[in-house]
């Protein structure tokens, strides 16, 4: 758990990269109970999906991004608020990079506000950093 005095605005937390192949999406479907065929049935996805193909669960990306933040924060108990905006669909087979940057500090509550995001290899943001935030309690 980082100390308030050691955290600075502009600081980035260690990023994480994760490949989201079909097997991982199927594992997440089983773990979460979200069996929407958009995440495993190519024929269904061709009709419904914004990409015309299979896309990852938004909550899978939110979950991995959340873990990226909690690893830095020293545990999930230090997260006071987490908000994400899913900006673009994430095609199956993507390697996604998750990141966060401290954008504000509150000395009274000893918290940091972070802008958080997830992006594809080409840099396209699938979780929008302008609208996605975490508030972390610091030591």
């Amino acid at each position, binding site marked *: 758990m980082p100390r308030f005095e050691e955290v600075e605005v502009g600081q980035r937390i260690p990023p994480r990269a994760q490949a989201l192949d079909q097997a991982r999406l199927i594992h997440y479907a089983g773990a979460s*109970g979200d069996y929407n065929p958009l995440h495993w049935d190519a024929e269904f996805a061709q009709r419904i999906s914004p990409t015309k193909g299979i896309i990852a669960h*938004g909550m899978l990306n939110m979950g991995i991004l959340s873990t990226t933040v909690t690893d830095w924060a020293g545990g*999930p108990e230090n997260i*006071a608020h987490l*908000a994400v905006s*899913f900006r673009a669909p994430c095609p199956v087979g993507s390697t996604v990079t998750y990141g966060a940057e401290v954008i504000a500090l509150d000395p009274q509550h000893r918290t940091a506000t972070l802008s958080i995001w997830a992006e594809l290899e080409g840099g396209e943001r699938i979780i929008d950093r302008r609208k996605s935030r975490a508030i972390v309690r610091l030591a």
Partner: protein
Amino acid sequence: MACFTILRAAAPLLSDPMLGAHSNILHASQEYDFHRPLRLGDVLRCTPSITGLVNRRGNDFLTLQVDCVDADSGDPVVTSRGILVFLGPQA
């Protein structure tokens, strides 16, 4: 949390014939306010409610809020808000 705040909370929506909901859904946004840390052994009472519904370009944007309180004390533990997009027939 995804299991409780999206799937179990949305299940009554999807099975309500009066609402006209269906399963061609995208997830637009999701947020959580943690009023206190979750602990092993916690028993939560979670109440879903529809707090917003707007139609934009043929798609319905539904805001689903879930208030989770400690089942014993009634104290708030987690509040979640998510926007689900029910895709219109032309989408």
